């Protein structure tokens, strides 16, 4: 069997997390709202009313363009895309057609041992339409989603596997959240992805007939759907059949693709410039204001963590997954004097756990990064022992007090005074002659039990290493 290659392009719709819709003052997000409760004359297409552009939409598009290495256009235009559908209230969608807000661009995907460059063919802003639900013979329309701001972003046919497609969506989602452009939740349709899939013999560079996969609502489903579709296409070709330009509908429950409609003729949308809106004018001054605090992007930061802090790629990946966590880590590192890997460990084990338990973002913790650094430092200098250090995390979080303050108030300072530890250790030995006998009889493992008893009696303040040494000393004297 000849070797095939999959050719994939992704068409994404990104719901922006602005306060209001793109052309009216309705709330942008209607998740779980009753149908038709978040609408007004503008977004429900009453006659005579006019769209008023929301500047925040252009600002978020500029951020995304910058992140995708695209070129922001000083002047871009809105167009009307004309088609009839009951959930499209004006009978046209306001979108950008031939002069969009940004052109060009790419994203370099790290794929382990290679990098895949994904080109951006289209990046424009537009409004969403409503939702139609059919129940038997009846049709219900919810206009809440009308006028929700979207960015449509389309890649070139540059992806070569289902995994690459999934990785692209993972990285895109990460960027969107990193830049506060979108909640990017595929399950809530904040991020929608249609996949154009075709196959060809490895080594060829022509593009064969493609199919389009729609209605996939998770990244894992995109991966599975592409794999299945590529497999089907290979089988068709092997059997001597042609690939038809179908649109395929993904069924979440059965994980099956089914044919929606054939796409032999393109609809004529009769685009023309939207006369109700002026051009979108992003001059240099505005662009500078939007990009003033443009952050280091996750992939670049990930690389820097490896290069600058000598962190393993695994750690760097986790610590750049989400911006608040990543910024937190950097601040903790700044405040900490020692091996960065120590901070990384505490972040990945302890801070992650606290975030998972509380549902908070790292930036929302009362346990400031400086406090984390302080706690690690206390442990490093043996002022507190490791378990006390860990318990300090929750204490600082619940009180908001500094670790030092808590250590002093609660007398948590580690006991490194040999005399005090010896006194406790001696008492334990005296009180447990049976255990001592067993230990001396060769049950070496019991030393741990003795250390535990010392720790307990000292209310966790004893330095466990010192306790062990002192116990060994006492036993050797027996």
């Amino acid at each position, binding site marked *: 069997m000849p070797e095939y290659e999959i050719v994939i392009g992704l068409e994404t719709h990104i719901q922006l997390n602005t306060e209001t819709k793109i052309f009216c003052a309705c709330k942008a997000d209607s998740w779980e709202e009753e149908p038709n409760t978040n609408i007004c*004359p503008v977004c*429900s*297409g*009453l*006659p*005579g*009313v*006019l*769209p*008023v*552009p929301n500047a925040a939409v252009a600002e978020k598009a500029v951020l995304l363009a910058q992140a995708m290495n695209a070129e922001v256009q000083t002047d871009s235009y809105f167009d*009307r895309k*004309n088609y*009839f559908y*009951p959930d499209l*209230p*004006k*009978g*046209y969608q306001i979108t950008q057609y031939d002069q969009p807000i940004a052109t060009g661009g790419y994203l370099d995907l790290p794929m382990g041992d290679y990098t895949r460059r994904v080109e951006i063919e289209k990046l424009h802003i537009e409004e969403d339409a409503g939702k139609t639900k059919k129940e038997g*013979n009846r*049709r219900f*329309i919810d206009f809440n989603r009308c006028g929700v701001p979207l960015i449509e972003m389309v890649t070139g046919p540059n992806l070569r596997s289902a995994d690459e497609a999934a990785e692209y969506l993972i990285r895109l989602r990460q960027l969107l959240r990193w830049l506060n452009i979108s909640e990017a939740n595929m399950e809530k349709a904040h991020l929608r992805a249609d996949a154009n899939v075709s196959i060809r013999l490895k080594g060829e560079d022509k593009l064969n007939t493609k199919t389009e996969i729609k209605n996939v609502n998770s990244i894992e489903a995109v991966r599975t759907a592409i794999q299945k579709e590529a497999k089907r296409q290979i089988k068709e070709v092997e059997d001597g059949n042609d690939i038809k330009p179908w649109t395929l509908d993904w069924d979440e429950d059965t994980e099956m693709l089914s044919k929606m409609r054939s796409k032999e003729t393109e609809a*004529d949308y*009769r*685009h*023309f410039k939207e*006369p*109700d*809106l*002026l051009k979108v004018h992003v001059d240099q001054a505005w662009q500078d204001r939007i990009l003033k605090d443009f952050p280091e992007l996750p992939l670049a930061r990930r690389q820097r963590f490896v290069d600058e802090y000598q962190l393993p790629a695994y750690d760097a990946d986790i610590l750049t997954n989400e911006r608040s966590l990543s910024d937190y880590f950097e601040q903790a590192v700044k405040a900490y004097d020692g091996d960065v890997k120590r901070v990384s460990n505490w972040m990945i084990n302890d801070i992650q756990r606290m975030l998972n338990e509380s549902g908070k973002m790292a930036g929302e913790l009362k346990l400031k990064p400086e406090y984390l650094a302080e706690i690690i430092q206390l442990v490093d200098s043996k002022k507190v022992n490791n378990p006390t250090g860990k318990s300090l995390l929750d204490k600082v979080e619940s009180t908001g007090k500094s670790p030092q303050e808590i250590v002093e108030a609660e007398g948590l300072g580690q006991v490194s005074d040999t005399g005090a530890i010896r006194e406790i250790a001696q008492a334990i030995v005296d009180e447990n002659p049976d255990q001592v006998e067993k230990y001396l009889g060769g049950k070496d493992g019991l030393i741990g039990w003795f250390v535990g008893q010392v720790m307990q009696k000292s209310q966790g303040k004893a330095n466990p290493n010192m306790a062990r040494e002192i116990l060994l000393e006492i036993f050797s004297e027996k």
Partner: protein
Amino acid sequence: MSNFLETSLAELQTGLRNRDFSSRELTEFFLNRIDEKDGEIKAFLSLAPKKALKKAEEADKRFASGDENLPPLLGIPLAVKDVLAVEGLPATAGSKILEGFMPPYTSTAVSKLLDAGMIVLGKTNTDEFAMGSSTENSAYFTSRNPWDTSRVPGGSSGGSAASVASQMAPFALGTDTGGSVRQPAAFCGVTGLKPTYGRVSRYGLIAYGSSLDSVGVFGRSAADSAALFSVMAGKDPLDATSLDMPVPEINLNGSTNLKGMKIGVPKEYFVEGIQAAVEEKVREAIKQFESLGAEIIDVQLPHTQYAVPVYYLIAPAEASANLARFDGVRYGLRVENDDVIEMVKESRGAGFGEEVKRRIMLGTYALSSGYYDAYYGQAQKVRTLIQNDFLEVYKTVDMIAAPVAPTTAFKIGMHTDDPLAMYLEDVYTLPANLAGVPGLAFPVGFDQKNLPIGMQLMGRHFEEEKLFHAVHAYQNDTNWHTKSPKV
């Protein structure tokens, strides 16, 4: 009760302030006049007598309160073209598809006048969706020209023009997409302004051709119309295409001398097809401007001949999209059908009249792939040439003088079988819409049949004030604008 026929705005304002008469008396007078005359003229599609009288009584209370800061147009009645939304009143746009539709909002132009104290008497007839030059395309009825009721009042704002000419309202609002204020003003012998595109908010105006639509005003004189214009004008946050230009408070006192003013006369507007009496009276008026001190200069607007084809591509193209929202889904007429696409088709089929369908088809065609470049795309290019004609001429003159329409009011039914002949009626008014410049139409005489003849001055963008000055000076010296038809 007083007789308010032929009173000026200034007289009404003074009378109300001095409490020589009440707003209730004034409003009742016009409502009674509508009662008597509108059976014949058919200017109004709907009336709001109770609301109007209630507003009038509120106004009278304010006059009686001794308040020093009364709004400028308090207690003065107004008629509104039915393509402009007024909350709580029907808005049909002259179409069956919007029968019974009540907008839950008020157009900005109207709401500014309401804030200034005006009282809406009712909504006036229009060609369906403002598509027409005679009101014959209204889905309800054809309005009559008060000078000869066998003739059209012009259109599409024919109801508004007729209501002011027959003195059923002292003022009326209209809209002008291709001449729909100026042409009926000319046919009915009243003064009508089409402002600069972007000068008056289009919010609440049921759109026809969005890049051409403007909200204008009819009054009995330039002075009267100017007062309403300066209230309506200005940037509106609800209309992204309204422009933030200073709105002058227009003071016409002393504008009797036009020394230093340069008026251009384009030869392209005096060509074959123009009625002899129209040309004669317009040229007489131009002489009058000269005698008032203006310098008259021959100018050229070489692309004028393309205005009709360009307009009849651009306006229908925009209309084909603007009217797509009337689909029977959310409001307006619905013809039930289990298949939703059939429902949309049948509702539109039943709700739209012939001319509206014609323009939707024309516009859809002009935008279709494969035809876009040759039609819509080309029209946009020629539109720029027409705009440049104006900008070029405005380097040497302050304004342009021209007839409004080639003929005086025509007989009802005369053009109904020949849409093209009807389109050619707009030949002198379309260029100002395509260029976005303001135009002020006013009466300059009568033809042999005693039908009014109108003329227009077209100014630079945002220079409405100059137009008002010039026409005020003219009206100060002449009395054509004071003539009223015997109704």
